[in-house]
């Protein structure tokens, strides 16, 4: 963890990035910044054929699960066999191998804009 602020859901003990399970890779937490403020964001997963893996295919903005489903169907109904939607604010995102932007950014750079605290 660097000095970057994290969203409140990352304080959930179930997702505490500082307490990885023994043998698990060290997980970073700084990918937990908010995704959508006015409208809720929904992570979208698509399976095109039954033998295919379920693949992350971005996210949609929608105020409810039903509207998110409608939007996902409009975007991927032409190809998807299965659609999964997960509220982004209920989804724990960890970077085990990749490094999130906040930590790719130059460490110690004075932040004159405030970020999440702005």
């Amino acid at each position: 963890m660097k000095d970057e602020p994290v969203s409140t859901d990352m304080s959930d003990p179930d997702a505490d990035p500082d307490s990885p399970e023994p043998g698990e890779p060290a997980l970073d937490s700084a990918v937990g910044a908010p995704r959508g403020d006015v409208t809720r964001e929904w992570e979208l997963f698509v399976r095109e054929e039954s033998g295919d893996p379920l693949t992350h295919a971005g996210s949609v903005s929608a105020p409810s699960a039903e509207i998110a489903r409608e939007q996902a169907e409009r975007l991927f109904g032409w190809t998807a066999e299965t659609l999964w939607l997960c509220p982004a604010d209920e989804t724990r995102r960890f970077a085990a191998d990749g490094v999130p932007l906040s930590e790719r950014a130059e460490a110690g750079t004075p932040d004159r804009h405030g970020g999440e605290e702005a």
Partner: protein
Amino acid sequence: MISVSKLLCDLDAEGDGLRYDAAAESEKAQIRERKQRRPVVVWNCTKQCNLYCDHCYAAAETEPAPGEMTTAEGKQFLDELAAFGAPVVLFSGGEPLAREDLVELVAHASDAGLRPVLSTNGTLLTEERAAALREAGLKYVGVSVDGMPERNDAFRGQDGAFDRALAGIEASQSAGLKTGLRYTITRHNADDLEDVVDLLADRGVDRFCFYHLDYGGRGAEIRDVDLTPDERRAAVRRVCDLTREYHDAGHEIETLLVGNYADAGYLVEYARRELGEAMADRIRGYLLTNGGDPTGERIADVDYQGNVHLTQFWQGYSLGNVRDRPFGDIWTDESNPLLGALRDREAHLTGRCAGCQYQDICRGASRLRALSAGDDPFGPDPQCYLTPEERGVDGESGVPGAAD
């Protein structure tokens, strides 16, 4: 983006190299060939705006939004854009001048090898800030004005916005920045178009970008003021005529049409009627090089929270977030079936687009409008105003009136 002045009057301008491969014949700085494969990236670096415009695709608010990318994140993001080979970063918003660190970010983009340009409502652009932006390496300022004072101010939600935008334009010009106009054409302001061009051309503005309304953000809520096909046809024809009239009078203005590649087909037809077959063929060749609608290919958008979008207007769907992965990794990940299909859309377009003779220079125009109007990302764009004859299709009904 289609340069009407380039196509009809053979003007040259910075940026045309990106659109028409004009680098070899231009004396002005051009974007290099090798970078044309990468998208121009719009960065909505803040959602905050001091105005509240009816048509704002970013649904900007007057209060700060949470989760805005920090200065350090912004710089790293710009470095990653430069490493990916993005030729241009367009700082947009919200109102980008609401960010206190804008000059710092522009300088960082310029130092990284990106061409930084700015889209602003102009009302916060002082001479001091414009000078600092120029010093930082800013190459161009586009100021949004959507009509003469009364209509503009009503549209933008603030009395005096027109006068303050003009003051911003003057500040930008005084700092030596190339400055242009951004104008979204609707039924509210189509009648003001010519007066605004005349007013600003007199003040030394020589670049006019006319946007068709796209159905994103608050723009989706004002479809009732979008132009009818006949009105759109008349407006585009007026832009063409106006460009040639200025050119013939010795006052060369640069005019561009943005957001509806049915314009490409219309321009070829216009040239055939007004300028002859040879010119029409030449224009079609330019437009073929241009490549038609750029969604998901030559234009990309990253919002203030780092979400990557297919265009700046399509904020309701995100491919991924640069806080998770570098932009280039997201943009080249065609495991996303929508992204892959948009890049191979000729195989997917349906309806009137499927058999159109101008499909190669239009590519179905706005996929967002198609989705908004017909629930199908590969259906026809409701803003198409070409006649069946122009599209090379006989016996189809429900189309605009007689061609002109």
